[in-house]
């Protein structure tokens, strides 16, 4: 049972780091631009497919295709911002939210037109999991796939880079300031237009990375980003809106909670929650959080 819990926690950390990468972007756009971006999941999808094309068509190694996915997602986000959101800057958050819903549908449909509606994978065949830690946690030890190790390392590197950016650069501090208090940022003379561009660059770049990781962990599908949007929103709210560090913590909590919910309990080894209902776990956490502590764990803005 302990081994099972640790195994699920490990899977939860993998899933959680993908959710966290998405949630950082949602949290920043929510804090800075003032709306819940429903197209964020589809930005992930676009990044995953752009990396897929570079990987398969140009026969480049995946580590080269990966930044292409990030850059692609950034380009998609900036294009959408230019085409839609920039014209609605003074509108209420609800108007922007609905327009982001439209943007989400557009991206998803384009992905379907270009790449088709079927499942695709970066690498055909099944990857063998590596066993380790048998002497520490007991038989049969823990399993992890090499791709999952790559995801964990990649996420750790990206999160560290974002941390350095937000903490030590002038633009990073300005982004946190604007997420804290957009009105005051304007009155202070912070260049809010540039902050918005950087918000998309960082948010969508991480979304593109998360999309590739998600495709690597499971498969590519036009709905992949849409389906993970709910856990990402849950992580954002859990961490506090406009709190990128909260989003990271929230992502890990949601990821681990989702995986642990499938724990099979003796004596009849029924899972705690039917795995088909995994996303409902995120939903339940989100609702509970909104009732108990709407500003999130890290006291973000209540919107």
């Amino acid at each position, binding site marked *: 049972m302990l081994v099972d819990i640790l195994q699920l926690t490990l899977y939860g950390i993998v899933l959680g780091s993908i959710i966290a990468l998405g949630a950082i972007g949602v949290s920043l756009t929510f804090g800075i631009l003032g709306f819940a971006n429903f197209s964020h999941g589809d930005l992930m999808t676009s990044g995953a497919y752009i990396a897929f094309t570079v990987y398969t068509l140009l026969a480049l190694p995946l580590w080269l295709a990966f930044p292409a996915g990030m850059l692609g997602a950034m380009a998609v986000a900036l294009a959408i911002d230019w085409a839609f959101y920039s014209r609605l800057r003074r509108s209420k958050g609800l108007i922007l939210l609905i327009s982001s819903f439209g943007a989400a549908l557009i991206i998803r449909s384009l992905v379907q037109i270009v790449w088709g509606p079927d499942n695709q994978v970066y690498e055909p065949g099944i990857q063998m999991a590596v066993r380790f830690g048998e002497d520490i946690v007991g038989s049969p030890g823990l399993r992890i796939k090499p791709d999952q190790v790559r995801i964990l390392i990649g996420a750790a590197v990206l999160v560290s880079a974002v941390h350095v950016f937000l903490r030590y650069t002038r633009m990073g*501090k300005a982004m946190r300031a604007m997420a804290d*208090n957009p009105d005051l940022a304007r009155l202070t003379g912070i260049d809010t237009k540039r902050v918005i561009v950087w918000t998309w660059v960082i948010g969508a770049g991480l979304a593109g990375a998360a999309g590739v990781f998600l495709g690597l962990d499971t498969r590519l599908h036009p709905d992949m980003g849409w389906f993970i949007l709910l856990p990402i929103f849950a992580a954002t709210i859990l961490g506090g809106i406009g709190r990128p560090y909260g989003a990271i913590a929230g992502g890990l909590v949601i990821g681990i909670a989702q995986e642990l919910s499938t724990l099979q309990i003796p004596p009849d080894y029924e899972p705690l929650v039917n795995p088909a209902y995994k996303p409902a776990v995120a939903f339940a956490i989100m609702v509970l959080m909104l009732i108990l502590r709407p500003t999130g764990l890290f006291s973000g803005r209540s919107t």
Partner: protein
Amino acid sequence: MALLEVDAVTGGYGEADILHDVSLRVEEGEVVAIVGPNGAGKSTAMKAVFGLVTIRQGQIRFRGEDVTGLSPDRVVRRGISYVPQTDNIFPSLSVDENLDMGAFLRRDGIAAQKAHVYDLFPPLQAKRRQPAGTLSGGQRQMVAMGRALMLEPGLLLLDEPTAGLSPKFMDQIFDIVRTVHASGVGILMVEQNAKQALALADRGYVLAMGRNRYEDRGQALLQNSEVAEMFLGG
């Protein structure tokens, strides 16, 4: 030439005008207080200077240049800083980072001005790395003013700096205003605590119903029996 001249300004938010022919001026290095009953348009008059109000008539000049209708981010570049009444800090940023943001527009070194701000507000020194949102009300007000001072403005606009503070903190805030003033910055402040504000101000304006009612030296307004009876609660 006055530092700031508001010349017969009429305006408001949207359709209805709140200010009618309001005029005021601040000389270089002066503290000027705007007092008056609730709804007199005190804060609106100040916001008009900072480009937050639609001005239909009249003109606002800063150091002789027309700044009427400029957006806040342009006004701030001209050398006017504004401290809103509420939400005037970045709560999750450290005290030091709040000051950094105040200097966002500056491309030259900011270390000297930062040291100057910490000299003005010694209690902040020890809390440099602490999130500003965790400080006491009085210290937050110091952060807010410190942020506004980072651009070395010629004029500081303070919107009800003591609103919602306990009497103990109020005295502290008026001391801070004196300190900032002593460093040579012109100050235009809106205050509910009219007596204390006028006692500290070089000059004061009494607004009522969005119009100028009285204008005099701060002390003189305090001693004006009419003003006292009508606006200062006897």
